[in-house]
């Protein structure tokens, strides 16, 4: 680093008001961002909370109706579909992409040739938007032009693969596409974790004659357990916010079968003019995020403290 820069000529003694101004500079620099973040996080949340308790329909209005919007939301069949989908999607999506991500990370960790190439291939879907992914996969799922037609063309004439055409299976199309998009992400995090495992630990296990699979099960994977949790938490967050993928892939259909909470919020607010109920649904999304993130953050803080105590 250019150390000569540090020997700047000593400034002339500053006047008191100048000095006071200098101590204010850091706070002044921070102030606009702080104000913006404060408005964004707190004012906007309280605003939406208030709308969710109001009788807003086409336009925001501020007549107080208590929890009516929440009651009618939870009584709604479509909301029921939305959060059932969310649970189903979260479960399969998290387990699926973690399993594939871990498998790929372990394989890449076996000192394979061209590691960078493999990693680039597995991770590129993450650079692309869900809109692009969803659009392309919606074509692939299309029974007339996509995978089904392709396999039938190969000679298997009664092959059937039309997930998005059927109310009961469309959600699995969303799940498969979600896993395709993000198992590379799980791979990247797992790989970083595998690389951070103390090599002496592995060596010791090897000397004891443990097999590779045993070393993974007993030594390596337990030490990267926190990464499993981190990946799971990030993906639940992803799942709760799922909007783009569904908007591009199935548009919530067929019918309302792939409605997700985020899709329903958008629909209530901008298609049906039920702003109050839409705000209530948005607050439920926030609550779901809080249920996942608050305990996780507390656990992280607790773990850091514990680490600090143990040196």
């Amino acid at each position: 680093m250019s150390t000569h820069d540090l020997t700047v000529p000593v400034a002339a003694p500053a006047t008191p008001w100048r000095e006071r101004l200098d101590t204010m500079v850091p706070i002044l620099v921070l102030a606009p961002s702080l104000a913006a973040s404060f408005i964004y996080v707190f004012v906007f949340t309280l605003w939406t909370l208030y709308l969710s308790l109001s009788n807003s329909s086409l336009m925001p209005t501020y007549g107080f109706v208590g929890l009516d919007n929440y009651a009618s939301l939870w009584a709604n069949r479509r909301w029921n579909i939305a959060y059932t989908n969310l649970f189903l999607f979260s479960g399969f999506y998290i387990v699926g992409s973690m399993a594939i991500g871990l498998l790929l990370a372990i394989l890449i960790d076996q000192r394979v040739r061209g590691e960078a190439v493999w990693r680039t291939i597995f991770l590129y879907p993450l650079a692309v938007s869900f809109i692009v992914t969803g659009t392309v996969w919606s074509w692939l799922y299309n029974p007339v032009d996509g995978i089904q037609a392709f396999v039938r063309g190969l000679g298997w004439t009664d092959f059937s693969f039309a997930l998005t055409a059927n109310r009961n299976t469309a959600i699995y199309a969303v799940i498969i596409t979600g896993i395709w998009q993000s198992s590379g992400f799980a791979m990247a995090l797992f790989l970083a974790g595998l690389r951070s495992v103390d090599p002496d630990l592995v060596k010791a296990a090897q000397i004891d004659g443990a097999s590779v699979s045993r070393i993974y099960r007993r030594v390596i994977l337990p030490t990267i357990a926190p990464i499993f949790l981190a990946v799971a938490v990030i993906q639940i967050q992803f799942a709760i916010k799922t909007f783009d993928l569904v908007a591009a892939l199935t548009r919530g259909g067929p019918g309302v079968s792939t409605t997700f909470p985020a899709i329903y919020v958008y629909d209530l607010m901008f298609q049906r003019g039920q702003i109050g109920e839409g705000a209530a649904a948005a607050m439920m999304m926030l609550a779901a995020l809080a249920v996942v993130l608050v305990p996780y953050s507390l656990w992280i803080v607790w773990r850091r403290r514990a680490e600090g105590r143990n040196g």
Partner: protein
Amino acid sequence: MAEISLNAGHDPEAAAATRQYFWNRFLIYAVLTLFAAIYLAPLLVVVFNSLREQSEIARNGLISLPRSFRLDAWAEAWGTYCVSGTCEGMKRNFFNSLWMAIPATVISTLLGAMNGYVLSKWRFKGSEILFNLMLLGVFMPGQISLMPWAFLLGKLGLTNSTYGLVLIHVVQGISFTTLFCRNFYVSIPDDLIKAARIDGAGFWRIFRKIILPLSPPILIVTVIWQFTGIWNEYLFGVVFTSGQQQPITAALVALTAGGTTARAYDVMSAAVLIGALPPLLIYLFGGKYFVRGLTQGALK
């Protein structure tokens, strides 16, 4: 493979071990290749279809090797394809996205760098708490802010404009950029700053002469993260803009939503690729930084 096992034939145990090793290696590469094929297939399908003739796609389906080659679909998707009455292709939406993503990325990154500098090197009473409050912005679902933004953008006269989206993405991005930069600057030794202060350097001089020259790695990570995130964003784009003002993600959905009969897969494939290209190029050329941003954003 066969040769080696023959040579080792006089020692059956070594031969078995060698065979086991090669079998393992084969299996590893086989599984990796299988997954690579699954990951690359959709991309190849779209690239091929953007080069095939529509009549050929209609005849042979989407998944097929190209038997024709032409770039017309790209030209049409870029400049002349008609979506809901206007025939200007994706060109305008591409530039909307560009003029949205570039300023929003630059502004949010600069603010993040300065905030990170203050929060790591000029801490004051309560600054840690303020930092943690700013971090909450990282987790906010966009849906919570839709109605307030609609109101604010209306008051500011920024509805249906790229400037409105820039504002949203700057405010939303500050928490990320501040987090990235702050965590990076914490690792710069405080002694460096102390020495400079003893020499009479002030807030801005230290920022320019010490912090910024050390910053390229984190600034690249932040810029890549912000640019790809903003380019790929859809919710705010579709809610707050319409028609010619839409960013490319919203325009792509509108484009591909059109009638279910006789879909122009060739043009739509080219349009999808035009929308995917900027982040893909950034990923290919800045992959290292992209991954670093990902893992940092995730694990902090």
